[in-house]
């Protein structure tokens, strides 16, 4: 059980500072990205009126998330942000499912991945707000309802990033720690496949959906 939380790191000195790379996580992220690109290539290679199975899968994703984005953002804005939402969900789902395959790990198990996605969502939401309402109206939003609520509003905005990324990280890391400890305790008998199915497939899908929906909601709060 000593390998709990052990990470293979590559430390590169740059101008007197040290840059740390988590090699496994980067590798796993690239696996996910290549898998998604391959899926996209297969789905759009031969576009037909009567679609093949992979094209159907792609159309389901795009359809569903376009409808969701339209619900939350309105027709015009949805066109701009629906691809982002759809891609985010597909990336997260594939990342969370990756841990089911032996010897592979979920990239979301490392805090850096969810945190960077959360920060990305944060900046996109505020960019959308500024673009839609204009800088002045956007800034005015922070001084609601009275002037000195500004610090509290700022903290509230930052807390959104913390909560959205720690939720994903906590669930995925918790699942993988539980699977590891239980497999160690029962000598890999019988239980771990069920735990893998529950934490990897079920919880992974739900948390990916929650993360995507929250990003969408944050954008829609800024836009409307």
């Amino acid at each position: 059980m000593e390998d709990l939380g052990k990470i293979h790191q590559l430390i590169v000195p740059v101008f007197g500072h040290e840059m740390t790379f988590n090699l496994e996580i980067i590798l796993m992220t690239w696996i996910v990205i290549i898998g998604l690109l391959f899926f996209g290539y297969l789905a759009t290679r031969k576009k037909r009126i009567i679609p093949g199975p992979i094209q159907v899968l792609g159309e389901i994703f795009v359809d569903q998330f376009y409808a969701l984005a339209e619900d939350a953002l309105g027709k015009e804005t949805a066109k701009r942000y629906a691809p982002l939402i759809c891609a985010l969900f597909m990336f997260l789902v594939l990342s969370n499912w990756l841990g089911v395959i032996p010897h592979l790990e979920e990239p979301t198990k490392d805090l850096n991945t969810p945190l960077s996605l959360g920060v990305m969502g944060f900046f996109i939401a505020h960019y959308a707000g500024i673009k839609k309402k204009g800088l002045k109206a956007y800034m005015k939003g922070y001084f609601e309802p009275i002037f000195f609520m500004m610090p509290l509003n700022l903290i509230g905005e930052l807390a959104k990033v913390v909560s959205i990324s720690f939720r994903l990280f906590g669930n995925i890391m918790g699942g993988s720690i539980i699977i590891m400890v239980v497999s160690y305790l029962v000598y890999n008998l019988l239980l771990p496949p069920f735990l893998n199915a529950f934490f990897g497939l079920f919880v992974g899908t739900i948390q990916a959906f929650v993360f995507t929906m929250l990003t969408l909601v944050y954008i829609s709060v800024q836009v409307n």
Partner: protein
Amino acid sequence: MEISGPDLIRAFEMLGAAISMGLGAIGPALGEGYAAGKALEAIGRRPEEAGLLTRTMLVGQAVTESTGIYSLVIALLLLFVV
């Protein structure tokens, strides 16, 4: 048993992390359960709105869970950073 100052501080950090996460888990979970229950009741009344209600339930639960996540952050900070 001799107790030095840093030891005492570290020990209480452990205890503090435990209490923070343990008690912090009660409230959000109860609230989320209540939200899920009410959403299920509403779906029972109007099954045709199930998609919208499920989405609203998830967003509501996600916001409710924030305090639980803050407890987790504090506990992790106490364990690893401070």
